[in-house]
């Protein structure tokens, strides 16, 4: 077994808080050091917000979990300072093949758009993602960022007292208590905090089982995503083969609903199945074998006064489309800057309600996409199977049917249409993809990339337009970034940000989403948009 599973990354050590006469107080407590909790903590601490992370465990997460990390996640990781190790280690791919029965029906090339620093996505084991997050947390700690990561700390009780939260934590040395201004509950799909608070988590269970195996093999399968519908080696079901770093391959085999899970997990059952798929002469060993049932569901609200849910604790999706960890990172991207402004007294608490509005909108989009993929892959009625097979048959000969084949849709960042933080679009002829609410698309600029100069603060992006160096409204500073046609050798800046307009001024949020845009600098309009984007009008 890979050593990475066994090494404690943040082993329990006794903390002074455990000997305090009265509970020690902290600004933010993050519960859970999975990908979402670690990203939240790094985002806050590197911006100077004091944060304690508690996890009952002390290692990377066990078993086969996320492997596909989308471009938006890599862009967020860049802002957090760990994009490069992720991309260096990850596997990149563009070719996908779709098989139906015994034949290949078609293949596709993702042909990523030019001018983005990061690829459409990478394949990387979740344990590497977590390992790199822990390393990043350690690095910023050593630079003085106020981040404290406590392993072997199991949260046993959470009580919201209106203006603070009290937590009781179990350790091998017995329980202790602390208090916090805010708690971010990143404690996973089975969220004990959600149960402690008696909150709902409703949705849809897909009555199907999937054998998920990570196998180590020296095989000459190309770096492509292969998806089978109804293959001879798994009749009536689906299968997926995908490459990860270190010669590890992810295999998903749909098993159906009425199976004996314990039996199906045994090597004497699993190995013949895999041999039938890979061929008798391929040598492989098993890293992990698990059986999963998938669900799509979310909490009704993510913010419960001072306890805020993020990641799998707030919403859960089936893995077709790789939206679990990817959407969890968008949660923290959305939350961190808002929480910072509220804690610093520079924005009203109501700003936190926009986290609810925007990320519930995002969760619904992800649940819709994941449910549709799952319905295509595992048709639940005779007629849906007939249509599914008709799509696949047609896709072999006719291009029109290929967009209907749904073996998982690429995770795309959410555009917050209708968000209370948006100012109505005021740029005539502006491209739809950069309308208010949109995540900023990247652009290659000279030797660098646009996204590297956006984020963490409000930015006024002036393109072919005059604007002052900066401005400040109610304690919130905005920095200007001026670009002209001269910076835009490829024309992508104009295509993505100007459209038919000759010039534009964008107000961009700390999470790189567009708050507002205009054809020219207008101080009054910009100040109003800034108040709006910081929740001043939400009270």
């Amino acid at each position, binding site marked *: 077994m890979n050593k990475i599973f066994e090494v404690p990354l943040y082993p329990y050590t006794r903390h002074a808080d455990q000997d305090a006469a009265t509970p020690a107080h902290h600004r933010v407590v993050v519960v859970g050091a999975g990908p979402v909790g670690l990203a939240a903590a790094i985002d806050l601490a590197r911006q100077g917000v004091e944060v304690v992370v508690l996890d009952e465990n002390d290692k990377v997460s066990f078993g086969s979990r996320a492997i596909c990390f989308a471009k938006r996640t890599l862009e967020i990781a860049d802002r957090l300072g760990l994009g490069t190790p992720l991309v260096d280690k990850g596997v990149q791919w563009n070719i996908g093949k779709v098989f139906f029965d015994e034949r290949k029906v078609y293949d596709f090339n993702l042909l990523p758009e030019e001018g983005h620093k990061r690829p459409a996505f990478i394949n990387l084991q979740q344990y590497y993602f977590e390992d790199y997050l822990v390393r990043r947390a350690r690095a910023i700690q050593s630079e003085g960022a106020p981040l404290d990561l406590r392993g072997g700390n199991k949260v046993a009780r959470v009580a919201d007292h209106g203006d603070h939260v009290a937590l009781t934590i179990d350790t091998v040395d017995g329980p202790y208590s602390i208090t916090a201004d805010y708690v971010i509950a990143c404690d996973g799909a089975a969220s004990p905090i959600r149960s402690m608070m008696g909150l709902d988590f409703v949705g849809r269970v897909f009555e199907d089982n999937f054998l998920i195996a990570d196998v180590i093999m020296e095989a000459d399968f190309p770096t492509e995503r292969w998806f089978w519908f109804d293959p001879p080696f798994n009749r009536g079901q689906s299968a997926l083969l995908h490459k990860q770093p270190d010669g590890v391959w992810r295999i998903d085999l749909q098993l159906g609903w009425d199976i004996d899970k314990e039996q199906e997990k045994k090597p004497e059952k699993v190995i013949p199945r895999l041999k039938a798929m890979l061929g008798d002469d391929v040598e492989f060993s098993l890293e992990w074998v698990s059986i999963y049932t998938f669900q799509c569901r979310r909490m009704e609200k993510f913010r419960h006064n001072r306890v805020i849910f993020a990641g799998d604790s707030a919403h859960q999706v089936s893995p077709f489309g790789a939206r679990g960890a990817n959407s969890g990172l968008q949660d923290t991207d959305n939350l961190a800057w808002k929480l910072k402004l509220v804690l610093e007294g520079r924005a009203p608490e109501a700003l936190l309600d926009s986290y609810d509005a925007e990320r519930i909108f995002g969760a619904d989009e992800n649940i819709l996409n994941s449910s549709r993929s799952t319905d295509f892959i595992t048709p639940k009625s005779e007629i849906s199977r*007939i*249509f599914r*097979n*008709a*799509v696949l*048959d*047609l896709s072999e000969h*006719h291009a*029109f*049917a290929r967009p*209907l084949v749904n073996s998982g849709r690429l995770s795309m960042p959410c555009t917050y249409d209708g968000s209370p933080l948006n100012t109505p679009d005021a740029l005539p002829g502006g491209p739809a993809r950069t309308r208010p609410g949109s995540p900023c698309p990247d652009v290659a600029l000279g030797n660098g990339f646009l996204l590297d100069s956006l984020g963490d603060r409000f930015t006024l992006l002036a393109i072919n337009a005059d604007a002052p160096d900066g401005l400040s409204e109610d304690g919130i500073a905005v920095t200007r970034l001026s670009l002209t046609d001269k910076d835009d050798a490829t024309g992508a800046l104009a295509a993505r940000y100007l459209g038919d307009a000759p010039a534009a001024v964008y107000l961009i949020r700390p999470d790189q989403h567009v708050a507002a845009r205009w054809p020219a600098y207008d101080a009054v309009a910009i100040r109003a948009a800034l108040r709006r984007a910081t929740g001043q009008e939400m009270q």
Partner: protein
Amino acid sequence: MPTDLILTPNMDRPDDIYADLLAAHEGLSKAESDALNARLILILMNQIGERRVLAQALAAARVPEGS
């Protein structure tokens, strides 16, 4: 002007077209006929293309007597 679903006669030579439909199914098993129908629906949906018109068609098919 957006196109609307046509529910008035629009086929040239309706008897021939109907006979073509039945002929396509001749000799097929129920499963083969179901598959052919599904492929045909998908091909025609692509020909129409507009979601709005297809929604009108679905509604008309669901409630043949009109709403």
